[in-house]
């Protein structure tokens, strides 16, 4: 790390020094810190595994009803090596992607307008909360009637879930933007348009990213429901097929796959957010 010539300027100095050191990641990490990081990373998963084994061998449940982690892993490997699992993952990820992309693309401008115009918000609020409360699974029959049983129908359900989850995040965030920054910009001579793209947009970006993150989570949670619509491929379809044949290990595997893909996407999005919003004050 660069040593500042004059100490005592607090964190500004430190961060300035940090900005000037482009290779701070190459700094050797002490072994103990590294070990702790690994333990922190693996710990929760090992705990879940231990709990799983404990339930399995506790004798409270019929062993046939609870596959071991080993059986599930074997199932995973089996389906992966035959190639079909990759197709299922691809199909599901693609549906989630399209649903979230469309849902957030609509939610950001709509949420922005609702957050900005108080009157519009109080007018629309009951409607949004009404539609938000409807479980997507209840809409499936209607979706089939109007959109058929193709890809569109599945994406529509994901779009619905993603839109209503993220529109609320967006408008709550926008409505909390401090008028102080707008006033400052006005006293510097900014026009309404300049205020919009030089002040409002930068302040809206964090909320749009949070909205995207929430939409992604909700879409993965809705995936199985959307693949109830006559899906041949996809992780939700895998789970449903397995349930018809009572293949518990496959069901577990499908659920775990959904969880891990969702987790990976969330981590990626969080990392992106941190890079884009390095100016934000955070407490973590």
């Amino acid at each position: 790390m660069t040593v500042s010539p004059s100490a005592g300027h607090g964190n500004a100095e430190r961060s300035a020094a940090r900005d000037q050191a482009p290779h701070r990641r190459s700094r050797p990490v002490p072994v103990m810190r590294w070990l702790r990081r690994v333990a922190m990373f693996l710990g929760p998963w090992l705990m879940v595994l231990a709990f799983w084994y404990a339930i399995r061998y506790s004798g409270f449940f019929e062993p046939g009803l609870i596959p071991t982690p080993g059986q599930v892993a074997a199932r995973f490997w089996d389906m992966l090596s035959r190639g079909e699992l990759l197709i299922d993952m691809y199909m599901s990820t693609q549906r989630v992607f399209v649903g979230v992309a469309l849902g957030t693309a609509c939610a950001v401008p709509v949420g922005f307008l609702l957050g900005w115009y108080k009157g519009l918000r109080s007018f629309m609020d009951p409607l949004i909360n009404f539609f938000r409360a409807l479980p997507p699974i209840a809409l499936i029959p209607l979706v089939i009637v109007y959109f058929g049983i193709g890809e569109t129908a599945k994406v529509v359900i994901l779009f619905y879930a993603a839109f209503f989850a993220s529109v609320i995040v967006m408008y709550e965030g926008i409505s909390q933007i401090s008028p102080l920054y707008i006033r400052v910009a006005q006293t510097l001579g900014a026009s309404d348009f300049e205020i919009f793209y030089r002040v409002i947009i930068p302040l809206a970006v964090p909320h749009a990213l949070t909205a995207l993150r929430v939409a992604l989570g909700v879409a993965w949670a809705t995936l199985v429901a959307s693949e109830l619509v006559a899906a041949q491929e996809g992780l939700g379809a895998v789970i449903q097929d397995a349930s018809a044949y009572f293949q518990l290990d496959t069901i577990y595997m499908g659920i775990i796959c959904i969880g891990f893909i969702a987790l990976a996407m969330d981590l990626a999005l969080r990392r992106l957010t941190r890079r884009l919003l390095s100016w934000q004050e955070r407490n973590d």
Partner: protein
Amino acid sequence: MTSSDTRIVFDGVSKTFDTDNGPLTVVDDVSFSVGDGDFISLVGPSGCGKTTMLNMVAGFMQPSAGTVTLDGEPIRGPGAERGMMFQDYGVFPWLSVEDNIAFGLKLKANRVSAAERRRTVDHFMELMGLAEFRKAYPKTLSGGMRQRLALARAYAVNPQFLLMDEPFGALDAQTRTAMQDLLLNVMGEVRKTVMLITHSVEEALYLSSRMLVISARPSRIRRVIEVPFPFPRTEALRDAPEFAELRSEVRDMVMREYAAQEDQARSATAARTQQA
């Protein structure tokens, strides 16, 4: 009343807000004028309507009665010739120090060439002691540095007026004193016409050419004090006996207004409690 160098004129200005408990008059029939190069301080109790008066000059609010004029024209909205500093700084957290200062210079109202912008930014970063934090985000700056950044940003667009709403209120005593000296210093270089709101009698007397003591709500001007000390002022003034004398005299007067506001707040609370 309008001499050649009179800039801002309050003429019979009142401001009334609608509240849940009926109309509330916060400014009542205030008249005064601000000449070119004046440094005017408004001192009075919290909630007395000082900020409302400043907001009318800034153009964020219109008076309910009377007029606030700038060079004879009623003020209808904010403008780049009236820079403002706020108590909570208002530095843009998503912009680095240099981009904060450059913000105003990129606007259509005061656009300059990139080379000139860089010169102006460098100049004010140097002047405000921010040069080594050029690329830093405000989150890493202390309160005093944020306020210096806000001052640099306001100065960069070269406004004729500087409106300051308790700009040093959130700073500790030492930083506050340092900021006052910095402000005098900067003023010595480029003089502005200033309206400053403060609770500190010492600050008002040290910085301003004229001080208005504002009454408890609704705001009226209780006393106008012409501060007799010549510019440029230095730190030695703080220890001068005539400064101490004027300070204690004015402080007594201001304390009475604060006490009146306190009584008002207490009886208003009592009335509300009785109603309930």
